[in-house]
């Protein structure tokens, strides 16, 4: 099969972008690395690595603690990132930006601090069949703790959340709607605005899992109208162990602290402790200062390229990759929603995804194989696993060709 000429947006200088990512310039098993596992974790540009190194080399001390210069520098950089994040997602106030370990911790925080105190037997938490385990298990825990029930909006054969079924499921018992903005397993972009509008009519608060959405397009939490929005730094070219919980201020104000410790208090005595104000009420203990500063650098980096341009380029990659993968005999793409992020999840006749992953690795091509922490999605399609190629703005059309060639090779080895 010959590689077809690919469309190449002239304004997007991917070669220059790739020079910012030193990790991409290496060989794996003698072949150039083709990194297509971005939905699991992206790579970091030199600008992010430099920001972290600079912080530890020149500015490190604990935040909110000391009167000395280093503590002030660390605090300025840490709190400065809160403003960067606020602008990035267009939140109203920095009080609405809570620094957490990642999307998972953000969901757990809302589950335990917002939902758990106000639900009981007869109440319902509504999620979809598309969710990552991180947007399933925290709600199951709350249900076990309170006697509330978990309800699941079914998905369709194309991998979309069934809107008609949702309209029937939401009702007076529903106490929260928790939805993925973009599916990690299939790439489906969920038209969350439609769901939020209906939830509003029912007075149901909405949490969005934005882990897969934020790196790949402009997110405006006020335009979306959601109550909580969760995302992770490491999927958006930032450091691991860092994430954001956005929450509407009125809701966060009313929520009790989730974890206790230093920094989340104003005064402590054995008789009475007064909690700190937002956002620090939810940030107990010494935080991930370097990770926070790295996230700030990551956002600056993404904005320097432009989220709209990233989205447009990644869409071109998606269209091309879908076409190339589909051409390979015996391949079936799982997840064919009209709106998708740059994710191609697929199965091959008679060849298990795990074998595809190993053979591709010997060709230097890194993809994810398995259930993608979305076992209910796999059960729905009656498959044990998929192979998933997930692209980022630093990937190239040539890398998509390398993926297709490696899949052809896989067919020769095992077909």
């Amino acid at each position: 099969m010959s590689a077809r000429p690919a469309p190449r947006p002239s304004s997007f200088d991917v070669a220059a972008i790739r020079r910012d990512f030193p990790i991409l310039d290496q060989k794996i098993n003698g072949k150039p690395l083709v990194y297509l596992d971005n939905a699991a974790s992206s790579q970091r540009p030199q600008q992010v690595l430099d920001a972290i190194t600079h912080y530890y080399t020149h500015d490190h001390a604990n935040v909110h603690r000391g009167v000395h210069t280093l503590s002030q520098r660390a605090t300025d950089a840490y709190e400065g990132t809160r403003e960067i994040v606020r602008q990035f997602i267009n939140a109203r106030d920095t009080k609405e930006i809570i620094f957490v370990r990642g999307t998972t911790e953000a969901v757990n925080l809302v589950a335990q601090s917002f939902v758990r105190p106000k639900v009981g037997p007869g109440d319902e938490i509504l999620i979809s069949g598309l969710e990552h385990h991180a947007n399933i298990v925290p709600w199951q825990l709350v249900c076990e703790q309170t006697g509330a029930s978990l309800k699941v909006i079914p998905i369709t054969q194309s991998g979309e959340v069934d809107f008609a079924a949702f309209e029937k499921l939401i009702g007076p018992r529903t106490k929260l709607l928790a939805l993925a903005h973009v599916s990690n397993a299939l790439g489906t972009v969920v038209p969350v605005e439609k769901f939020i509008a209906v939830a509003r009519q029912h007075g149901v608060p909405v949490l969005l899992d934005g882990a897969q959405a934020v790196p790949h397009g402009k997110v405006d939490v006020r335009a979306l109208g959601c109550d909580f929005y969760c995302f992770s730094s490491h999927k958006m070219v930032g450091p691991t162990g860092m994430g954001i919980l956005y929450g509407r201020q009125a809701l966060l104000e009313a929520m009790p602290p989730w974890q206790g410790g230093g920094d989340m208090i104003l005064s402590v005595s054995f008789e009475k402790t007064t909690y700190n104000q937002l956002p620090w009420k939810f940030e107990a203990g010494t935080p991930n200062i370097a990770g926070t500063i790295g996230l700030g650098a990551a956002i600056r980096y993404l904005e320097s390229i432009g989220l709209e341009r990233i989205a447009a380029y990644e869409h071109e990659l998606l269209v091309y990759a879908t076409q190339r993968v589909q051409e390979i005999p015996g391949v079936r793409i799982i997840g064919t929603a009209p709106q998708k992020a740059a994710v191609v999840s697929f199965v091959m006749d008679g060849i298990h995804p795990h074998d595809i992953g190993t053979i591709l690795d010997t060709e230097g091509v890194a993809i994810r194989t398995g259930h993608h922490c979305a076992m209910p999605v796999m059960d729905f399609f009656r498959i044990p696993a998929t192979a998933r190629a997930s692209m980022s703005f630093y990937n190239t059309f040539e890398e998509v060709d390398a993926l297709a060639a490696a899949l052809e090779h896989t067919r020769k080895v095992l077909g």
Partner: protein
Amino acid sequence: MDLKDLYRDVIVDHNRNPRNFGKLDPADAHADGHNPLCGDRLSLYVNLDGDRIREVKFDGSGCAISVASASLLTEAVKGKSRPEVKALFDDMHSLLTQHDSTVDVSKLGKLAALSGVREFPARVKCASLCWHTLNAALDQQAEPVSTE
């Protein structure tokens, strides 16, 4: 890392045409095995003559390594006594996990084809799942075996 070390002809053949594939009903012993990382699931069924495996079958789904390993296992353990199966388990464990394994591969027959798996650490559990599942069946464990 050479792919040919992993997907040897014997393995590709046993993946395409697994031997002793199916159920034994009734079975003297049975166990389920699961590798949650990749979704491999297999069931092993054993009929015994006293201490000796008279019949063994497996079914389920999984990657080429797990299916071929289970298929090769069924051929290798048929007719063997429990202590012989235990000795074979120990040999396979050594073969799959130890670079300096002193196991005499010449006495392993076709099972020796799995020796390349140890060069692919992410795949060792695929090959060993059926062996742990057989142990569980012979020990009459009620809980499914998991690689995690």
